[in-house]
């Protein structure tokens, strides 16, 4: 055992155990750690946004480099601060509207291509052959079609639609099972990461 003498490691370890104390029951130490997390994260984000985005992209070009074209994004950006004045807080809708419109407009066409066209093209069956690859392609074709049928609620699922959507449910259950299996690994990994920190960096039990 080789316990760390670094005060920062001790702070990190105590805060880790404070969060874990919630497993026993909710307590003041956990609540303090939770609120500290939110506060530190917000303070961190403010700095990152300022140093990496607001200052080099708006403040410096406009006020130091005197690039007057930057006044338009600056005005939109300042409108966010109208949230501080309840009577004029509706002005925050201006930059939000600008961003929503521009970003959605830019994204529609490439998204349609990649999300729909490419995926649909791959689902179309290749030329028939007695091979494992063709069998897999056929299973994917049936699976994709039946899953889409299952999610089509504009028609009542009866008769042949009911049968096809049942097949879709089977594919969905297998897919969700695979996701669950992976999710177990994900959650355990997060715990392993913390336990490695406690055992290695703090207590020095493992190398």
């Amino acid at each position, binding site marked *: 055992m080789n316990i760390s003498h670094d005060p920062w490691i001790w702070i990190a370890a105590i805060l880790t155990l404070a969060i874990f104390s919630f497993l026993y029951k909710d307590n003041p130490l956990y609540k303090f750690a939770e609120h500290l997390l939110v506060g530190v994260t917000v303070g961190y984000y403010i700095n990152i946004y300022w*140093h990496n985005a607001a200052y080099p992209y*708006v403040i410096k070009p406009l006020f130091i480099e005197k690039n007057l074209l930057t006044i338009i994004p600056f005005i939109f950006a300042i409108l966010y601060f109208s949230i501080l004045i309840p009577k004029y807080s509706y002005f925050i809708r201006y*930059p939000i509207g600008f961003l929503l419109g*521009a970003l959605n407009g830019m994204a529609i066409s490439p998204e*349609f291509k990649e*999300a729909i066209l490419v995926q649909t093209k791959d689902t179309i069956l290749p030329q028939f052959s007695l091979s494992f690859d063709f069998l897999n392609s056929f299973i994917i074709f049936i699976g994709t079609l039946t899953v889409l049928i299952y999610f089509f609620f504009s028609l009542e699922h009866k008769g042949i639609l009911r049968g096809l959507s049942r097949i879709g449910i089977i594919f969905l259950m297998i897919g969700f099972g695979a996701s669950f299996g992976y999710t*177990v690994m994900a*959650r355990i990994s997060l715990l392993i990461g*913390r336990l490695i920190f406690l055992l290695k960096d703090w207590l020095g039990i493992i190398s």
Partner: protein
Amino acid sequence: MLQKQVPMFICFLMGLLLFFQFYIPASWSQNFYNTILRWILGISSFAIVLGVVSLIRHHLRKIRKKEDLPYSITLIFSIFATTLIGFIGGIKSGTLFDKIFNYIQIPLQSSMFAILAFYMASAAYRAFRARNVEATLLLLSAFVVMIGVIGIGDLIHPFVPSFAQWILDVPNLAAKRGIAIGVGLGIIATSIKIILGIERNWLGR
């Protein structure tokens, strides 16, 4: 008009212009596109103001009502302290700001998500029941994938990881593709609705 119509018009105008810009390769169109991209980066860099103001307002209200007083004070104090430390001392590697990130923010956030492992284990024991054929299929698929991805799967038989990989590559893929196509259509429909002003939740009250 200033409250609803003008922002909706701005949204519509920008959406329309940028949608058609994709299909116009002329140099003036490209220049317009590049300018808008830089404007977006500038404008969105201030969007954090909304979240920060809402959070501080909420906790100041709690402090005035003396609800959860020590915790709200902790939160407000840590926001201002971290912000000032970053502005005064800088954000480079080795600074106090960097240490706060590495030894306070990372451990707290990692631990918060690490406790999910316990809840998942508890849920696995209490809630995952093979009540019907579908649930049994889900559990069997999960078991195969869980055994297939670990070293023990390899030791049992080489077929185990191959079968787990096949489940991921074929039936899982089919299910997720169906969902992805549906989600993709939904995203595009929502984008069009926002631009056309049919979807107005972003305007708030």
